[in-house]
């Protein structure tokens, strides 16, 4: 706005200048000073040219302003669109949470009532059928819960704060007490750095990775689980969790992080297959990446990287760079 005003003033000044010069030049010619007249006329022409330039510049700026305005409007419209899509997604997951769980609860519930009232009159085969229906209803309940949690991981806002990975590993091990009880597990936890990250999400990452390691070493007499970290230029901070469990075929490595993908039969290793998908989603949201190495029956190593940033300022730079 101030710019436009300045322009108008400049234009006015130039016009008055032109008029003054022209009038003075004319007076010079009339009073027999032709040279003076020519000089003034020349100056008049220069000033007129300048006036034209200023007008043109002003027009260009006006155009630029209009383009900016349209751009701004388009950004606003797109943001509104995204907002409404987000709201739709939220409504969708809300409805899934409420409306899909209820019928499952009823299935399991009424099978129980059926068992309660007529268990004795059912033969073994029919009892087994009922058991399977119950199990399936419960399994679908777990799948729905996991899907909802997965969708939350994608939507929740990241709260980036300094987080000690060392501490998160300790917490994850605490969390897994039940699974590790009575097992012979040799833990090797190296020095781990502090990173800028969303604490509760990174906690989920560590719990998922350690739970996997615990689960897939289940048949080892002595499980070995190692957690370590390194740093390099390309990836930043790299954290790994290594185990001596059943491993996997590298041919299917790209499927490991998919939603509900499993590389082992559910009868042998329980779980819905969402854990690593959560890990990947969380790490991607932190602008890092995930990958894995393994060999059948020779253990597996899961890696994730985070942009190198142990301090808030470094992280801000990385973010700005990524955004720019």
């Amino acid at each position, binding site marked *: 706005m101030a710019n436009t005003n300045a322009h108008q003033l400049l234009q006015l000044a130039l016009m008055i200048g032109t008029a003054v010069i022209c009038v003075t030049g004319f007076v010079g010619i009339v009073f027999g000073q032709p040279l003076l007249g020519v000089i003034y006329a020349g100056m008049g022409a220069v000033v007129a040219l300048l006036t034209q330039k200023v007008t043109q510049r002003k027009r260009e700026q006006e155009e630029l302003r209009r383009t900016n305005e349209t751009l701004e409007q388009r950004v606003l419209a797109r943001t509104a669109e995204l907002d409404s899509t987000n709201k739709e997604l939220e409504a969708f997951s809300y409805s899934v949470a409420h409306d899909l*769980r209820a019928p499952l609860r009823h299935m*399991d519930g*009424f099978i*129980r009532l059926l068992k309660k009232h007529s268990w004795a009159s059912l033969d073994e085969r029919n009892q087994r059928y009922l058991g399977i229906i119950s199990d399936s209803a*419960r399994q*679908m309940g777990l799948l*729905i819960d996991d899907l909802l949690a997965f969708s939350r991981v994608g939507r929740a806002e990241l709260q980036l704060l300094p987080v000690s990975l060392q501490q998160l590993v300790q917490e994850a091990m605490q969390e897994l007490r039940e699974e590790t009880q009575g097992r012979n597990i040799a833990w090797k936890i190296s020095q781990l750095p502090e990173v800028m990250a969303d604490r509760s999400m990174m906690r989920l990452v560590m719990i998922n990775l350690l739970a996997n390691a615990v689960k897939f070493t289940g048949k080892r007499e002595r499980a070995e689980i190692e957690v370590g970290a390194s740093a390099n230029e390309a990836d930043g901070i790299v954290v790994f969790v290594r185990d001596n469990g059943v491993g996997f075929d590298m041919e299917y490595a790209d499927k490991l992080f998919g939603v509900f993908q499993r590389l082992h039969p559910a009868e042998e290793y329980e779980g819905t297959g969402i854990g690593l998908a959560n890990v990947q989603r969380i790490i991607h949201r932190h602008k890092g990446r995930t990958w894995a190495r393994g060999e059948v029956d020779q253990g597996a190593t899961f890696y994730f990287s985070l942009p190198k940033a142990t301090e808030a300022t470094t992280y801000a730079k990385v973010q700005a760079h990524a955004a720019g």
Partner: protein
Amino acid sequence: MPKFKRMLLVEDDARDVELTLDALEESNLANEVDVARDGKEALDYLYYRGRFADRTRETPAVVLLDLKMPKVSGIEVLRQIKTDEDLKMIPVVVLSSSAEERDVIESYQLGVNAYVVKPVDIQQFLEAIRKLGLFWALVNEPPPNRSSSAA
């Protein structure tokens, strides 16, 4: 035999009513439960209106409240209870199908006394209802009966 206090179950889904009553029955609590089938009925019950106009003047020991109901939702019932001078002392336990964050937050902001997610696993469901029933009908000391002034 200890004296059980009355409870109000607010639930629109007939199947959930049956499963909940069955669970309470196993703890010998089913006889102490009144059922309202939507939010409007729940308010009728609390204000002694409609089909509850003639019920005994007695404040329930707890309201077990479903959230997703037609007409008047659970959240609206909760708001009404907690903003009414005569009703706000009644303990309210939300029994919801899900733990969606906004429901949990809104319920607590309105002053809910507990928030329980109905588990899909029926054994866990039974256990949750049994514990709830015993706690609120037996263990907890309810607020003094204000029914005389509640009409």
